[in-house]
């Protein structure tokens, strides 16, 4: 493949990745319409990596991390950044090469850059999920988190999915050669005006930081946490894993807000993490059981589907 021209603005970077993965047979989905801390929390990853059904998707995930907000003053940190998330299930044998092809597509080639796969194991205590893999370095900078999912919601992933999470702002800063996120060019208008990251997000960063660190009402957030948790529970009772999971995500986000506000003491912290994890695990169990009850319809290999249903029959009961 010939080296391509590096995308010159943020949205061309997105489009290039979208094209690349679409050409390799991924369904292009969208980021979730609820607050999530990472693309992994989108049900298109967290729930879909469970069970035997194949799943190849790619999407941009706006990811909120209230504690990382810096009032728009830090050139490298954001309350909300964008991840490009790819799930390949099952993980193809040549996944590293396919991935490296995506870097080449955005102009990052091994002829010009020091590309390295450096051990980095991933674990999410709130999701009861873990995997092994690498952070991929381009000239010493982490450009992607590359994970072979081993467990999600406390369940073994069979088959194993490969998860690729690109940090888009970082990559864009590199490609555009800017030292400040807010100087990134998002796109160029028809009249030649450059729309910058500052134009699009700076006010949001200031306000969201103000909200996370100062303006939120911890008492109300604590009440919301309890309410969302209760709603999640009653939806689990009614065997509705997807709506239940939405409220699990709500709990997780409220927890992050409280944490950023410094409203959760160290001793309580672990307790809240465990509560969210419990919800996530229950949603995962219910989702898996529901797919099994449906007979894993997206799996064309029916013998394999039967086999997995048999293996999970205790879960279905």
């Amino acid at each position, binding site marked *: 493949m010939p080296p391509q021209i590096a995308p010159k603005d943020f949205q061309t970077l997105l489009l290039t990745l979208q094209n690349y993965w679409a050409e390799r047979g991924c369904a292009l989905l969208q980021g979730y319409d609820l607050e999530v801390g990472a693309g992994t929390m989108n049900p298109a990853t967290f729930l879909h990596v469970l069970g035997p059904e194949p799943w190849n998707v790619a999407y941009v995930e706006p990811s909120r991390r209230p504690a990382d907000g810096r009032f728009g003053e830090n050139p490298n940190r954001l309350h909300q950044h964008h991840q490009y998330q790819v799930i390949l299930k099952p993980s193809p044998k040549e996944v590293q090469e396919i991935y490296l092809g995506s870097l080449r597509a955005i102009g990052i080639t091994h002829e010009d850059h020091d590309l390295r796969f450096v051990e980095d194991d991933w674990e999410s205590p709130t999701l009861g999920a873990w995997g*092994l893999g690498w952070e991929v370095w381009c*000239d010493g900078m982490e450009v992607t988190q590359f994970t072979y999912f081993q467990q999600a919601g406390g369940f073994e992933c069979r088959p194993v999915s490969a998860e690729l999470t690109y940090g888009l702002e970082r990559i864009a800063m590199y490609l555009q050669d800017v*030292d400040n996120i807010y100087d990134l060019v998002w796109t160029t208008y028809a009249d030649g005006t450059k729309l910058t990251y500052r134009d699009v997000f700076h006010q949001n960063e200031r306000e969201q930081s103000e909200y996370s660190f100062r303006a939120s009402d911890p008492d109300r957030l604590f009440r919301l946490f309890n309410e969302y948790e209760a709603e999640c529970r009653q939806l689990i009772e009614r065997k509705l894993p997807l709506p239940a999971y939405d409220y699990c995500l709500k709990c997780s986000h409220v927890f992050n807000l409280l944490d950023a506000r410094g409203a959760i003491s160290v001793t309580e912290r672990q307790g809240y993490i465990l509560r969210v994890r419990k919800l996530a695990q229950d949603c995962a169990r219910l989702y898996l059981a529901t797919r099994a009850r449906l007979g894993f319809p997206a799996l064309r290999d029916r013998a394999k589907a039967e086999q997995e249903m048999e293996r999970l029959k205790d879960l279905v009961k």
Partner: protein
Amino acid sequence: MDVVFEIGCEELPASFQKPALEWMREFFTGEMAKAGLGGPKQWSPFATPRRLAFVATGLPEGSTDATDVVSGPPVTAGAKAKEGFARKMRVSVESLRETDGRFVATVQTKGMATADALPGILEKMIRGIPFKKSMRWDALDGDAFARPVHWIAALLDGKPLAVKFADVKSGGETRGHRFLAPAAFAVPKAAKYLDGLRKAHVLADWAERKSRIAEEVARAAREGGGVARPDDELLETVTGLVEEPYAVLGHFEKEFLELPPEVLVSEMRGHQKYFAVQDAQGRLQPAFVAVSNTKVRDPAVSRKGYERVLRARLSDARFFFDQDRKTPLHSRVEKLARRTFMQGLGTELERVQRIRDLALWLHGATGKGQAAQISEAAELCKADLTTGMVGEFPELQGVMGRVYALHDGVAPEVADAILEHYLPRGAEDRLPQTDAGALLGMADRLDQLVGIFGLGKEPTGTADPYGLRRAALGLLRVTLARGYRFDMQEALRHADELHGKSVGGKVWQFLLGRLEVLFRDRAQPDSIQAALHSGAHDLVDLEKRLVALQTVREKSRAQFEATAAAFKRIGNILAQAREKGFAAMGFSPDKLREPAERALAEALQKGRERVQAAISDKEDYLGAYAVLAELRPVVDRFFDGVMVMDPDPSLRDNRLALLRSLHELFSPLADFSRLQVEKSA
């Protein structure tokens, strides 16, 4: 015969590579022996991020048929044992014979060609490598490996061996560098393996690659007018990250040199794996060396990348540094109340209060240091945990505490103690140079040990999740190195009180176990055992007793062994007497009958004061051993001429009492019953 074996996989963690090779060697040698085949004449292990391999040369062609006669359990052990033995030997029960009251099996081993044995051994090897963490991937069923395996090469004298793992079948091909020589090519012959891979841009030999990196780094550092900061640990890590290294020099803005050097070094080596560059005096320069895995077209491009990442990190560090210094350490102490030290052990503030209490107690017991300094340093010693910098770089705890304390105008002695109380951080690390730092560190470790033992979370087997072995070793090393005299059991009791627990005894036993490890190179194991159980609870005293014991033992081995044996015998006699309920009490010179016992009583009487003075006043254990040596002929004559267990109870008890006082007099030297001595007196 020569074997070339290579497992090719996706990038292995750097720290997994060398331990895997070690294991492979042991496994291979063991399995070959089990198959009746000898080991290789030469074994050469190779590891890179993408391969684990070895070349073994000089293997035998195979083994010949062999007949072994193996003797099993005694016939009296019965039918069950007989069956078990037959099963173990893989022979029929009927075929067992009886010789000299034992079952005997005749085991026939069929000779085996090395070529037939190897595939099984190699497959087992792939499955068996114990990685710290392993993963599953799709092609695997039940197996696991550190990262997905892509190829296996297995050749015996150039002919392929059939080895299978997951969906990979072995072949005769390998691959070179991921980017510079990605195509598969025939595995070179054993003698040419290294050379062939070198041509494919892979330096497979660890030592060669490591020294090439060192040269490359030195070259790049010279370009920057300096030398690389020596860092063997980083060198090892980088060796596990590249197959063919190229070093690139980079720079950062001079202003960042205002950051403490420890911060700069942590930023460079910790996450980025860059080598810091310093001048001849060891002062950091605004430069670094990154080691690339590829020779890129234009190093200026990747240099710019390396610099950009470091600049962002240093900017972050400077932000933390500036922010942190706005809040003095003293006013951070109260924030510790909001941090849990450990579930069940209260907050960091409560921990700090216990540490202060213990440190002051140690100060009282040893008479070292100044109370006011110790108290202030104790209060501040964990305050840096609340700083942004330590949040970002946990390894800088203590280092930042000292820097910030100096910035706040805290006395240098106190600031140093904050840093030093963490020392030594590992086996190779330096020890504290100030009393305040040493005492504080000891207090911290005592608190950890007693606290965590109190939760029932002491180390088990190889698992030591709270690092208690290291904590214990630190406590012992500091105490001994600084020659602090105090009763360790008392200190543990005090820590027990602070925790409301009573695990001091358990922790003491644990410390004794660690002392054994610490002294391992200085004396033989039974000497260590005997000295450690001599009854002292003052570590320095224990060490002196051990040194004396080992000195005497080495100087005149035969004589010492005889003396020790005599003492063991006395100990045994006294123990037996105790069991029988005999009273070894109330020695009376009037009851002495035999000349030999009278002589012993006299010699004991004469020696007593010298021994007591030597032991308790002067800790002159060698002097006490000298008296002991003088006494030995008298003791020997006593045993030759006197029957201790006389039928007359009063004579018997009197002799027992004589032996007991002799035994007691010398028992502070060592617990002789723990010595393994051959000769009996």
